């Protein structure tokens, strides 16, 4: 902890690097999220049918089939063996996310992410307490429950409630009352549990996290020696526990953020004034000396809690 923690999050980065570099990945991420949505909306809104379907399954330029592997897996648990088209689509999606990081889906594609980010922004502005924080493994229990219910009922169970497909399909094909699911997620994150949905419960995130366990694209705290303990990266990270092992690792520990919970959103790269973080591959073995012994070796309780 340093006196810089008193500054607003990202302020130092804006002053040092300029506004654009302090928001680069946030802006790119929003553009990507909007871009994926617009690709799907070009057809129904403007009659340009480059992409047909929705995130569960789509066909691009009439040749490229894409299928959500989690939906297809539930279908198999429900004892339906899908046709080759869907299996090829799921393999393409699965391999892509396995390489670039499964939870890239969460931060760069998922339409619920702007909703929960907005809830988190308002949560911070209103100064609410963090509320109920489920255990780290909860989302995997939910994922297991989804497979169990799929097998028991013989249906693709999560699609009955999945707020992601409710919102995405709703925007493209017609919303009905599906907005209620989206509002429920927003309110849950706002008043019940800080970063509760995407960070603790969503089984889609859990699945994609597992999918990207060995992903090639990683964020690395390669210049961790320059860290000035401003804590801004912890403040913006939706899965803050992933930072600690890399940033605060001892000499010899890898500076790579290897946790499958990391969404590769790149926001830590944005807000870090000394440019500690960068995108790299998991094979990057650039030497990354650990941080020097801190001026105040006695850790304050806030720091340990954040870690």
């Amino acid at each position, binding site marked *: 902890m340093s006196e810089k923690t008193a500054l607003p999050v990202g302020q130092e980065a804006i002053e040092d690097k300029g506004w654009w570099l302090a928001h680069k990945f946030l802006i790119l991420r929003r553009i990507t999220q909007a871009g994926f949505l617009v690709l799907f909306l070009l*057809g129904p809104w403007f009659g340009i*049918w480059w992409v*047909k*379907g*929705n995130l*569960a*399954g*789509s*066909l691009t330029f009439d040749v490229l*089939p894409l*299928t*959500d592997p989690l*939906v*297809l897996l539930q*279908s198999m648990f*429900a*004892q*339906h*063996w*899908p*046709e080759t*088209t*869907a299996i090829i*689509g799921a393999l393409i999606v699965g391999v892509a996310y396995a390489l670039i990081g499964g939870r890239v889906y969460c931060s760069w594609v998922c339409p619920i992410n702007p909703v929960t980010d907005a809830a988190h922004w308002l949560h911070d502005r209103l100064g609410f307490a963090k509320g109920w924080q489920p*255990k780290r*493994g*909860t989302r995997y*229990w*939910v994922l*297991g*429950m*989804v497979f*169990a*219910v799929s097998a*028991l*009922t*013989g*249906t*693709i*169970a*999560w*699609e*009955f*409630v999945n707020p992601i*497909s*409710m919102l995405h*399909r*709703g925007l*493209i*094909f*017609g*919303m*009905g*009352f*599906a907005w*209620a*699911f989206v509002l429920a997620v927003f309110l849950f994150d706002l008043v019940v549990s800080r970063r509760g949905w995407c960070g603790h419960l969503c089984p889609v995130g859990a699945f994609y996290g597992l999918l990207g366990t060995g992903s090639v694209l990683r964020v690395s705290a390669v210049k961790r020696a320059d860290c000035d303990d401003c804590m801004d990266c912890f403040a913006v990270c939706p899965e803050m526990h992933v930072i600690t092992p890399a940033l605060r690792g001892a000499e010899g520990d890898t500076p790579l953020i290897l946790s499958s919970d990391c969404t590769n959103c790149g926001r830590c790269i944005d807000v870090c004034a000394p440019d500690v973080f960068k995108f790299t591959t998991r094979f990057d073995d650039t030497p990354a000396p650990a941080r020097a012994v801190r001026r105040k070796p006695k850790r304050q309780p806030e720091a340990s809690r954040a870690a």
Partner: protein
Amino acid sequence: MSANSNRNPLPTNRRRFLQDAARAAGACAVAGMAITKLATDARALPVQAIRPPGALPEEDFLAACIRCGLCVRDCPYDTLVLAELGYDGPATGTPFFTARNIPCEMCDDIPCVKACPTGALDKGLTNIDDADMGLAVLIDEEHCLNALGLRCDVCYRVCPVIDKAITLERRHNERSGHHAIFMPVVHSDHCTGCGKCEKSCVLPNESAIKVLPMRVAQAEAAEHYKLGWEDRNPLVDELIDLPDRLPGPGTDNLVAPGGYLPSGIEGMPDPSMEGGFAPSYGLPGTGGAGQ
């Protein structure tokens, strides 16, 4: 708490793990039950909602349909829609059509089936005439104009499988006494359930003829039933013998309904009973034997 842990021989972290696991499992069981309720409710597809051609039976369909809407996109007549939560009956996001709004035009190339990536719409359906989306049923004979003895015939005329799926059966008009009723009759082996008849019924609001799901519209003959006029051998796998026509009283001995065929008696009635049967002689076993 500390006293408790002293008594408990389990290490704290293992006990905590078991506690956490039990709590998570319990919470997931509650959530899972709620989703199970939604999933089982969704099987009760409303009768007005017709699935696209080639759709698997509803319980298999909900395992196979990923709700991507590609069938909807490739439907050239905007017949198919995805169910919207709260407005439409089928499971949210699954494709269906309402025949009274836009019926299926029965495209020869069946683009909706081709578009389906998962097989929820069965690629085995290659001839649209083999589709079984539902079965048209003349549901309101009180208001059907043809049933009233008028010549509307619209459902018959629009039927893409005219004279096979719907035929007009000529019947006597009992009301007028000297007119005919041309009754629309649906034949399940040819009806595809496209719904053009329901769409075009001239009555306001509800149609007199409706496409219903097969599960609602069609009864099933019992396995051992055989129609004697279609099947010359009514025996079931040689297990059941024909009833013996005993010539005794109380049987269906049509030649001599009272009993034995009398022989050697003069004035025997014509066996074909032209002009009615009036026994003019006493028969053995009649007259109060009470058989």
